[in-house]
């Protein structure tokens, strides 16, 4: 075998091993050496895709937490609406209802309020171990999009505003109604006149609760937009990475097969020229 043939064979073997790696990995850029610019762009695009996906994960977590908060506050709203009904019944009936009947209304109102007592608020409303009712959640540092400064509290996001990224304290929301959350409603421990209904205060409390619900729902909308934006970014950067990096399978298969023909002629011949048929000339 002369030196030229040996050189050609070595070159074919090297090309073959490269195309085999390309086909096995599905990537035409397997190392920086293959294509420096392509490698850099593909890596940057991949990082961007992953960061966007992680940010969408954060957003989805926040969405889940906001869902639980909204559901709980809707319960509080329903209870407050009932308090309003009881207040109206109590005030309208104060001259015609018996003491027992008025007491029953007060007991129902106090029992409802009791569901929002401090002990309940401290244990019943949690998400993934975090207490939702104490206003201690601060979303301002949660990264909701790509870029270190793209946090929920960043000026560029519409989450901003005084205390905008911190939920209200639920006890305060209820207490605006002036209905005590710690009244003893046990038999014998309750006297008529304990609950003082203040229709104006209850109205205010309802407004507060609804404002907080609207604020949480607004955050959800913003988060949904952020998720859409992150997902769009992730898929476009993934397409960019793919353009630089992924293999055109047909071309790579041809390159690999061509490599096999050049470096393993005997095997390739066994594989592809295994016939005694002689029809080729008839096809011209």
């Amino acid at each position, binding site marked *: 075998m002369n030196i030229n043939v040996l050189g050609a064979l070595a070159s074919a073997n090297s090309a073959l091993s490269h195309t085999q790696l390309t086909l096995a990995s599905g990537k035409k850029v397997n190392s920086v050496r293959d294509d420096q610019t392509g490698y850099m762009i593909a890596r940057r695009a991949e990082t961007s895709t992953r960061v966007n996906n992680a940010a969408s994960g954060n957003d989805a977590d926040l969405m889940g937490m906001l869902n639980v908060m909204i559901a709980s506050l809707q319960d509080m709203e329903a209870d407050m609406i009932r308090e309003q009904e009881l207040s109206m019944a109590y005030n309208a009936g104060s001259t015609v209802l018996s003491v027992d009947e008025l007491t029953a209304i007060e007991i129902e109102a106090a029992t409802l309020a009791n569901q929002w007592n401090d002990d309940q608020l401290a244990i019943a409303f949690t998400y993934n171990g975090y207490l939702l009712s104490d206003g201690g959640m601060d979303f301002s540092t949660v990264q909701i999009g790509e870029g270190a400064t793209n946090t929920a509290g960043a000026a560029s996001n519409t989450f901003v505003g005084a205390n905008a990224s911190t939920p209200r304290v639920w006890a305060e929301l209820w207490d605006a109604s002036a209905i005590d959350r710690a009244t003893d409603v046990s038999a014998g421990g309750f006297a008529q006149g304990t609950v003082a209904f203040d229709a104006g205060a209850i109205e205010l409390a309802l407004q507060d609760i609804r404002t907080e619900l609207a604020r949480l729902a607004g955050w959800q909308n913003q988060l949904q937009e952020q998720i859409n934006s992150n997902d769009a970014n992730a898929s476009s950067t993934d397409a960019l990475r793919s353009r630089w990096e992924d293999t055109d399978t047909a071309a790579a298969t041809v390159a690999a*097969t*061509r490599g096999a023909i050049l470096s393993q002629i005997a095997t390739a011949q*066994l*594989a592809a020229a295994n016939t005694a048929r002689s029809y080729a000339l008839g*096809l*011209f």
Partner: protein
Amino acid sequence: MDSYNTKKTFPNRPARVALSQYQNNAEVSLSPIERLIKTYDAAIFNLRRGDVQKSSDAITELVLALNFHKSAPANVKEIASGFLNIYEYCRACVRKNKLEAAANLLQELRDAWEESFKRQREEQFQA
């Protein structure tokens, strides 16, 4: 009347018989790789000419030449699979009327066979 019915008897006319015999002799005297290269040529020629039927027939010939026999070694079958994928891809190209794309792929393989064949001949002469 029979003398006018030339179409029926055309395949048996002396010139046709002679051509057919020449083709048979020419092909029989070729080595397997040369026959394979001829088949590639037929496929590429017909693809570039836009003859879908004949190019498909030629690609079928290429497929039939593949070795998937159970006694064939694994590496032979592996390479045959690579060829089959390419031929199937070419067939798909033909169906989508991307004849030039299929022709280019086959041309690349044909040239590799030719180069390899020449190299093999060089080695034989030197031995």
